[in-house]
């Protein structure tokens, strides 16, 4: 069976997610779909699986136009997907989750004996050993991922879409998955493999399609013709490769934050480092290494279970984000822009002023919209937030502008230390470059910055020093000499020394 997407487009309020994107998937192949975060991969998958309807373009199955009203239609025609979001029913058993829409029944009632036997068959196919009667809420994240794959298999899918399937798997589990993919391919399935891990893609795919800013820059190129360089170029574009924006600099400012032997309930052990004013300290690590969890503990969102913090040379305990901001002048720019960064419902001025309402308040807490506008306008202008007015709801802005609003909020707060978590995920290239430049400038103005990122080029371009986090520990740290190749070797070396996992990183 062949699946073709012909010039599909899709817009969401404030964002153009896909523009004339095309894809051609044949049976018996593993087809990679690549692109940076926010390039439109998930949107394309959701169009293929009937979750979203495209605004324009066509979807063809064996040359026939098809239109999916719901995921059910796609499943009926043999298209199944393993999405990034956890799509299991927590209180249902493994077997029932796998067979949910197709439960075997006898005299009208669910036949659990047969369901368990059938589910077991699919679990054996993927080599997962769990009792099919276990409720999935008791499984590990990796096991849940495998159950989702088993679920897709149960649909007898002829087209299988795997959206970042290895994100939460260990090396061994990932290898088992790749072996399974090869077996399915041999049986004639068409497999769309979505990933931004180059090594994986190079290893298992036959052809590749690349998305950049919602457009397809490569369509079905045979992998044999590809090199790392060409893939990266297609994904991020040569001209837009991150320029080194910050010359190497030795940190001389006063120490703002010193962590010694910090431990958390999330699993951190023995985390020690210092951040100085005017310095960008990079915290690099793979997804799931524990970087965001550390940041949350540092700003008082989660509790420390051990170790001490010292701020401006004095011992400190941070009990809440409010305290971090008001007493210790520490801010955290969340990676989760939509849920933790901005309030979509409210205007720009409201969002930017959120951290400074206390300061804006006059007698008895009174303040006005005009006061907010006056106080926030310089920051909106400084960050070049594109909007007709500060009264615009943040929900109507593009992702890049939303991120600028989120940043403006912390600039307005005039914190001494800003923890910046994945600042450029899902943001267009131009805004990305702008944000990089801004982060550099802020450090030059004396702000202490802890930069969390899983994009090594970003790290190499910005950080003065790089700490490498792996499995909730800091495994290495070194000065950044601005050479991507050298840093890449050091970072990978640090991670590989700690585990034998096959870690593939751009």
């Amino acid at each position, binding site marked *: 069976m062949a699946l073709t997407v012909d010039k599909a487009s899709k817009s969401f309020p404030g964002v153009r997610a896909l523009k004339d994107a095309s894809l051609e998937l044949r049976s018996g192949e593993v087809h990679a779909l690549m692109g940076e975060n926010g390039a439109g991969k998930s949107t394309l998958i959701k169009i293929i699986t009937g979750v979203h309807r495209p605004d324009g373009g066509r979807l063809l199955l064996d040359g026939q136009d098809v239109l999916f009203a719901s995921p059910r239609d796609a499943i009926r025609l043999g298209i199944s997907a393993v999405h990034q979001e956890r799509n299991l029913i927590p209180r249902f058993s493994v077997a029932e989750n796998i067979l949910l829409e197709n439960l075997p029944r006898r005299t009208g009632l669910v036949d659990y004996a047969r369901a368990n036997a059938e589910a077991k068959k699919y679990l054996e196919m993927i080599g997962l050993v769990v009792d099919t009667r276990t409720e999935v809420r008791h499984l590990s994240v990796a096991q849940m991922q495998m159950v989702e794959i088993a679920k897709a298999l149960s649909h007898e899918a002829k087209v299988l879409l795997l959206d970042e399937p290895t994100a939460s798997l260990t090396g061994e589990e990932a290898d088992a998955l790749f072996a399974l993919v090869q077996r399915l391919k041999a049986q004639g399935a068409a497999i769309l493999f979505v990933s931004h891990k180059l090594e994986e893609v190079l290893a298992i795919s036959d052809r590749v399609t690349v998305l950049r800013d919602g457009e397809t820059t490569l369509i079905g190129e045979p992998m044999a013709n590809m090199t790392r360089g060409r893939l990266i170029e297609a994904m991020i574009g040569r001209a837009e490769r991150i320029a080194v924006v910050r010359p190497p600099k030795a940190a001389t400012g006063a120490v703002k934050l010193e962590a010694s032997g910090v431990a958390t309930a999330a699993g951190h052990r023995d985390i020690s480092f210092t951040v100085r004013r005017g310095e960008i300290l990079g915290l690099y690590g793979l997804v799931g290494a524990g970087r965001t969890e550390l940041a949350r503990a540092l700003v008082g969102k989660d509790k420390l279970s051990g170790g001490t913090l010292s701020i401006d040379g004095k011992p400190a305990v941070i009990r809440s984000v*409010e305290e971090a901001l008001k007493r210790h002048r520490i801010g955290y720019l969340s990676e989760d822009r939509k849920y933790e960064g901005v309030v979509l*419902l*409210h205007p720009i001025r409201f969002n930017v002023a959120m951290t400074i309402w*206390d300061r804006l*308040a006059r007698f*008895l807490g009174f303040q006005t919209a005009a006061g907010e506008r006056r106080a926030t306008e310089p920051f909106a202008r400084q960050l070049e937030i594109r909007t007709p*007015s500060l*009264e615009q709801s943040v929900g109507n802005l593009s992702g890049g502008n939303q991120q600028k609003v989120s940043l403006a909020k912390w600039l307005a707060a005039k914190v001494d230390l800003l923890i910046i978590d994945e600042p450029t995920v899902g943001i267009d290239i131009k805004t990305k470059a702008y944000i990089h430049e801004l982060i550099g400038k802020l450090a030059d103005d004396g702000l202490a910055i802890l930069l969390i990122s899983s994009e090594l080029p970003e790290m190499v371009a910005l950080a003065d020093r790089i700490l490498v986090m792996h499995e909730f520990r800091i495994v290495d740290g070194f000065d950044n000499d601005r050479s991507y190749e050298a840093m890449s070797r050091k970072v990978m070396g640090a991670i590989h020394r700690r585990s034998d996992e096959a870690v593939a990183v751009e």
Partner: protein
Amino acid sequence: MTSALDAEPRPSSASAMDPAPRRTLTSLLLRGSTQAGLFVILVVLWVVFANLAPGFLSKFNLNSLLRSVAVDIVVGFAQMVVLATGGMNLSVGAIGVCAVMFSGYLMQVLGLPIPVAIAGTLALGALLGWLNGFAIVKTGVNSFVVTLASASLFSGGMLILTKAVPLNGLPAEFGAFGKSAVGPAIGSMPAIPSLAVVALAIGLGLYVLFKHSTLGRQILAVGANARAAEMSGIPVDRTIVFVHALSGALAAAAALMLTARLAAAMPAVAGDDWLLPSFLAPVIGGTALSGGIVSVVGTILGALLVSTIRSGLLVLEIGNFWLPLFLGAFLLAAILVERGRAAYVAREQARRA
């Protein structure tokens, strides 16, 4: 005002984008706010009722309408402030009956001066509301469940203590205030009842709270996105406890107004009867159940609409009995019309963009 924060683009920028807007009445109505739409519906209803039943515009009917709507408005406010944070308070009525009986106890049994009794009653309401907020924040249990349980606790406790015996010997001045009016009567228009003035004053206070204060902004931020609010250093838990205390105080204020109107403290006057009106007024008026958007003006208009329908149907002698059917149907119709209007505006904007 569209919401406490007028989030719409400035008119000037809108007309700059659209040099020749069609200024037909329908397009104006469709583009206006929920509150403007409500106002038009109200005017139409008043014209219809006035024509069908001359008694509707009588001094007596208008006076009783305004006195009862005043209480409904404040009951609506008591729910609105909690809705603003995305929560609910099912114990508005229970706090109301507790406050009714407590005010009677303070004035009749203890013989306290009226201002002291009023202050004490408001404090009790705030305390009961605070207990709600405290339980919600400390246990992490949904506000629906907590206030459902506390409603039962509060009204049960009140009935145990009072044995459901009404207090009829309130100070005469208190009942007199409930009947008094401000300003002169003009023609067939009655003077404005003092209770309506109180409701408007409370409305003004809430308007200032949401539009011009730090606390109001914190409430709206928590309601729109509690996680983002917390990560921006806003004390989410304290804000939630505050709105519940405020809700309790507002329920107590409504209870005092009701007691003054009836000139007696009766245990059966609020309770379950307040549940529907407390949601009707704010929700018809454009306050979102999901939190983050409130409208003080909308709540006032929503309460007026409900009272107008009730009063009109009574004057038309359609009968008390069918009234709840009309109220329920009207609530759904009002929300549906508003949704249609909002969808139309969104489509128009998308087409022009």
